[in-house]
């Protein structure tokens, strides 16, 4: 599968490998930066799982195993590009500058969003599968009409690729040649539904059926993901139309903290993928080729731990909002039922008062 069928530039053992269509353009510094990103986001993700297990989050959707897919794509984005995530793009959010505690507001159940999407050019999370993919295409149509040199990248999983919205989005992106990159993280499982049920053919082949290029990349190879994403985004930006990137990866953890994967998959499969860990292979490369010292790696670990502690503090400090805030921004313009609801809440003495 490696080669045409799966772009890879770095083996699981951390050795560079050539590819007919892509080559790595990153410096040692930059590669170390990607390593740091992945370590931090994995550490924050694990802390979030702990917080959920301690009753501090309602739910958490982990990205364990998918760090390279997200950091590789995230660091390929230009500042003016716009991203449309699902609920699991913590690595992308990190790259776009969204503060980690803001990523957790949805899971803390104190917000359905969590950050200012225009400020970070990263849209609010979408839980209904596939909706954001259509929204992204619409946004890209707006980019075209504005004549802007921006690309739009939207994310979804192998499960969502069966949704009507995603397929309709392919139709539209192709027909209107919109500047959008469809980034599908095929982590092999839609909760308990294996990839084999979602599609009889490799996912990236679908693009051809709709009339635009598709490419499959080793989703655990951050160097490859970076290059493939960069090219697709550049193409979109200059009017080259849409691309489908299938990042072939694996969901090492559960679908969410409410899921128990031991019920539907075997440990052996997980073990296989653990040997393809995205962070380990980059670390090996950094040691072997760039002679990075242990102390540098320790620094990153300490930094990650400190950020995890900070995240914990920030989450614990996230109080229940004043219930009167439920009325804010339900409508853009004044609305009689909003006024009525606010009044009733104040009269009942539930709210802290005028807002």
């Amino acid at each position, binding site marked *: 599968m490696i080669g045409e069928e799966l772009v890879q530039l770095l083996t699981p053992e951390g050795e560079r490998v050539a590819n007919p269509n892509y080559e790595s353009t990153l410096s040692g510094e930059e590669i170390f930066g990607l390593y740091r990103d992945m370590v931090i986001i994995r550490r924050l993700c694990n802390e979030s799982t702990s917080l959920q297990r301690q009753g501090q989050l309602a739910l958490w959707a982990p990205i364990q195993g998918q760090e390279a897919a997200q950091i590789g794509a995230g660091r390929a984005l230009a500042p003016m590009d716009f991203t449309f995530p699902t609920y699991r793009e913590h690595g992308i959010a990190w790259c776009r500058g969204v503060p980690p505690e803001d990523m957790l507001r949805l899971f803390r*159940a104190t917000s359905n969003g969590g950050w200012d999407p225009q400020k970070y050019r990263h849209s609010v999370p979408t839980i209904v599968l596939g909706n954001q993919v259509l929204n992204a295409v619409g946004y890209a149509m707006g980019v075209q009409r504005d004549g802007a040199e921006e690309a739009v990248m939207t994310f979804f999983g192998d499960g969502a690729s069966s949704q009507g919205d995603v397929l309709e989005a392919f139709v539209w992106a192709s027909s209107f040649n919109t500047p959008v990159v469809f980034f599908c993280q095929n982590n092999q499982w839609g909760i308990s539904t294996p990839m084999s049920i979602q599609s009889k053919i490799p996912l990236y082949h679908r693009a051809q059926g709709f009339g635009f290029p598709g490419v499959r990349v080793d989703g655990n190879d951050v160097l490859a993901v970076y290059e493939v994403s960069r090219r697709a985004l550049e193409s979109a930006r200059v009017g080259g139309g849409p691309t489908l990137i299938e990042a072939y990866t694996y969901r090492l953890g559960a679908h969410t903290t409410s899921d128990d994967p031991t019920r539907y998959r075997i440990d052996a499969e997980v073990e296989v993928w653990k040997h393809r860990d995205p962070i380990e292979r980059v670390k090996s490369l950094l040691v072997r080729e760039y002679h990075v010292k242990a102390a540098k790696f320790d620094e990153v670990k300490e930094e990650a731990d400190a950020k995890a502690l900070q995240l914990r503090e920030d989450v614990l400090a996230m109080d229940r909002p004043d219930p009167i805030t439920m009325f804010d921004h339900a409508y853009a313009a004044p609305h009689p039922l909003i006024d009525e609801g606010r009044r009733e809440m104040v*009269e009942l003495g539930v709210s802290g008062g005028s807002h």
Partner: protein
Amino acid sequence: MSEEIFLLPDVGEGLVEAEIVTWKVNVGDTVTLNQPLVDIETAKATVELPSPYEGTVVALHGKVGDVMEVHKPLITFNVGGTASAPPTTTAAPVEGATSVGEGREAVLVGYGVANEDGVATRKHRRQGAHAPASSAPAAPPPPPPAPSVVASAPSALAPRSTPPVRLYAKQHGVDISTLAGTGRDGLITRVDVERALSGTPASAAPVVRSSAPITGPLSPSHFVGRDIESWSTGPKEERIPVKGVLRAMSEAMVQSAFSAPHAAVWVRLDATKTVELLASLKQQASLKDVRLSPLSIVALALCDAARHYPGINSSFDATTSEVVVRRSVNLGIAADTPRGLIVPNIKGADELGLVEMTQALNVLVEKARNGTTTPNEMIGTTLTITNVGPFGVDAAMPILPPGTGAILAIGQIAKAPWVVNDEVVVRHAVEIAMAFDHRQIDGALASRVLGHVASFLADPAAKIIAP
């Protein structure tokens, strides 16, 4: 160092309990943040719980194999007070505290369904909700007068009533659009329909009434050392011999003062509801031409007090050594005219409702100003009101018109700081004072009467509807 109890959290599988599979720590162990504590089994899945604290394990609340309840103690720690410790999950749940899972039964994708059992007590109450005004008449049904004929033009609005009353009226052939309602805000009530049905012909009085007949309490009241009959049941004029204690008091009073020893009581009260009632009544289309004023309410208040305490409506007849109690109020109003002070009266003022009283007051003032008050209107006053408010005065210690037992002075109604529920708020305050003839009226009676007037002014709507 503090003790923290870690309650078994819901880990999102709809569980109410979990079984302890393996303890990974022992009592006395020092643990770090997120260190694995225990494996629990929840409905066929095993979950590892990481430590929320840094500290020492003080107690494990179950052994391997025990089935533990969610939100019940699992482990007790001694925590070193580091910043990483979450707030205690044992404290009583506080609004906004981080014990997010309290009271919930865990479900698959969230904190869980809130446990609503046993939430019996009301947590919140609507603020500023006024107590419902009692609309049921307290007294037994009075003899029904004739149904009022609405003198004004037919209303452009649908007659206001309730479905059961409409049905009742329909079943008995009464057209409710011809009735004037005596309920709140002019609502046509079942009593109004019943009165229409009993159809007693109107009395000879030419006055158009639009409110219910006024009665006073039926129980006897206490005066000059004895119980005297109630307003409604006693004779209109009752003569009581001046004997015994009464004689002693009166003679003593005479000895200590002039022929009419004056004493006074006064009180400052919150008249906001009177002000509000007048404001709202003035909005009514049907009352547009009636010049309502606080004096109307004061007049009603004083008459109502007299009905409850007939003794205040009395005079000391020194020539016959009798105290004369009257059960009809001729209400004198101190009127300042170009020719000086006169005190004309409204005969039978106790029988007038708000509208009639106001009309009578307006007529009286008009005539006094024009100098057309008749001699008859100048005699027979039993109780008097002097209104010093228009002069910007708070109170007065008035002189009794001869032959009367009490005179009420009312000052200006002005905004003032007032204490309500231990907070200082702005209210409309007023001072009222009553001077009385201490030969037959003692301070206790006068105080009760003044208190009655004050209560009336403090909540007139309640008193007018349910005397």
